[in-house]
């Protein structure tokens, strides 16, 4: 990977080896621990515009998910379990434990938000507060009969195609593919809201065939085992115990969903929602509005008794 700009000046960098995976992680700030989880097709760099303000209140732990950025890419398996959100949730739980944090808040965007809610469901004692940005659960996303529009359905279906179709198509055009995601997902319908230095990080990640494959596996998992895990929880009536804040962009992935909170309510003991002016890439498109929504929720000193 070519040397890319450091967007977290003063933050510690470490490569944490946790079982079969090594997670590249930036750590900085002061206060209680807050785990920040990025999504597709991005890396930990996604949070660079909100990290300075958050670091005034929290110790930030900002990893690359397995298969993304500078974290390692464990081998995939036929069941796609290696890239299940349950597996990724265990990764970050171990990461936090290795840093001495057994209970913490977590904010996730896109795929990272799926890891975050899975963490809250699988390890309720670990999660203090949960912020999920611009998603519905995988269960709700895949419900037959759910009328998703022609525009929103494409990349889920594409990336979940059997190997090597998306790998090959992306691999021959990684920059077109990457920039296409932002042209499609931002409110500006362009790459302008993305800092060129951050874009260089994203480009480096998706220029590596191993990472292209790993990130496709992330989506194959969503079409198989993630959906199965969500369905098990739904059938069993398991709920997210941690107070939950759902944030979505006015022109983001949930713009045509109607009332996103109606989908989230059955999953959460306590959930609130805030709409912000943005497309899907809220932490980069409208960091001010994200902070205005998330900070009061995260620094709320109401402690919830662990179950």
């Amino acid at each position: 990977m070519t040397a890319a700009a450091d967007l977290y000046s003063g933050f510690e960098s470490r490569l944490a080896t946790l079982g079969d995976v090594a997670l590249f992680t930036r750590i900085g700030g002061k206060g209680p621990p807050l785990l920040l989880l990025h999504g597709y097709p991005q890396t930990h760099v996604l949070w660079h515009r909100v990290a300075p303000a958050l670091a005034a209140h929290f110790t930030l732990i900002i990893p690359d998910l397995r298969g993304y950025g500078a974290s390692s890419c464990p081998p995939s398996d036929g069941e796609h379990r290696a890239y299940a959100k349950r597996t990724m949730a265990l990764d970050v739980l171990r990461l936090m434990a290795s840093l001495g944090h057994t209970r913490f808040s977590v904010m996730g965007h896109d795929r990272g938000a799926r890891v975050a809610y899975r963490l809250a469901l699988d390890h309720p004692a670990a999660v203090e507060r949960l912020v999920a940005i611009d998603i519905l659960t995988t269960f709700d996303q895949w419900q037959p009969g759910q009328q998703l529009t022609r525009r929103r359905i494409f990349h889920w279906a594409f990336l979940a195609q059997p190997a090597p179709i998306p790998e090959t198509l992306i691999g021959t055009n990684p920059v077109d593919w990457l920039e296409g995601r932002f042209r499609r997902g931002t409110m500006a319908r362009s790459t302008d809201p993305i800092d060129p230095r951050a874009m260089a990080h994203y480009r480096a990640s998706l220029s590596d065939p191993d990472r292209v494959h790993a990130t496709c596996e992330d989506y194959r998992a969503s079409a198989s085992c993630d959906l199965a895990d969500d369905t098990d929880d739904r059938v069993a009536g398991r709920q997210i115990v941690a107070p939950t804040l759902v944030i979505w962009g006015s022109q983001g992935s949930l713009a045509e969903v109607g009332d996103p909170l109606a989908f989230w309510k059955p999953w959460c003991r306590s959930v609130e929602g805030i709409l912000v002016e943005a497309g899907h890439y809220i932490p980069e498109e409208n960091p001010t509005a994200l902070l205005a929504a998330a900070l009061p929720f995260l620094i709320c000193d109401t402690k919830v008794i662990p179950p």
Partner: protein
Amino acid sequence: MSSTSDDLFPGFATHRIATTAAEIHVRVGGSGPPLLLLHGYPQTHACWHKVTPTLTRHFMCVAPDLRGYGESKGPSADHGHLAYSKRAMARDFVEVMQKLGHERFAVMSHDRGGRVGYRLALDHPERIDRLVTLDIVTTLDAWTDMNMDNAVGRFHWPFLARPAPFPETMIGHDPVFFLEYLLAQWTSTKDLSAFDPRALDHYRRSFARPEVIHASCEDYRAGATCDPEIDAADRAAGRVIACPMLALWGASRKHGFVNKPLETWRPWCPHVVGMPIESGHFLPEEAPDATLAEALPFLLADRNPV
């Protein structure tokens, strides 16, 4: 005209017919009442080569390439994608058949061609005496039925409908890879064994051309915009397919294009008949005999309206 195509349609004449907005490459052979054969994506008229030896004994078979596909030249793309609407493609074939001297004709049609086939029957009821569709429901119904679950099997719909030049670029780096993947993926055996090597060669050479990739993307862009709007207007107006209609579909596709086909077709054609065929998506090549066993009696039956 290619020698490969000649091999697949021995004795057929070749015409190049200018329509209002396109130049249509067409093969014509056989004798009897006229039968228009419309291929789908990502193919050409060559897809009919296994059924034409039988069909030509009963029909004057007319097998064109859709505008922009194969050797047919399509118009430039327009913002609303109307140039590749099924309505515009249907008009091509009214003109092509007229120039060949056929005012009224039967249609057998597969995939994208099937969408042109039912559009012909809705827009030009006076011209179509029988309609066979292979492995489709209407574009409107296909979108209405689409959800995250079945979208994996239909990912090419939203993919190819993305604005230019995104899918063109993604496909264009290795078009034969993409072509062969789709062909294999949609068969019941998940490989290329159903396809005659000469037909495959024909598809490869056609699909490797950037203008064919672009036109076929425009076909799907129309399929995501004006085509379902036109369908919806017909539904709202209560227009139905007047001619006898046979819907056949492949039985072996887990994530097929076709969910409850007869139920879905009935509002469009109350007298529709149909059945599954043991096949993947490519009925004329994977199951030519079974397809003919149903289609031929239907096409040959008494031509009085039901």
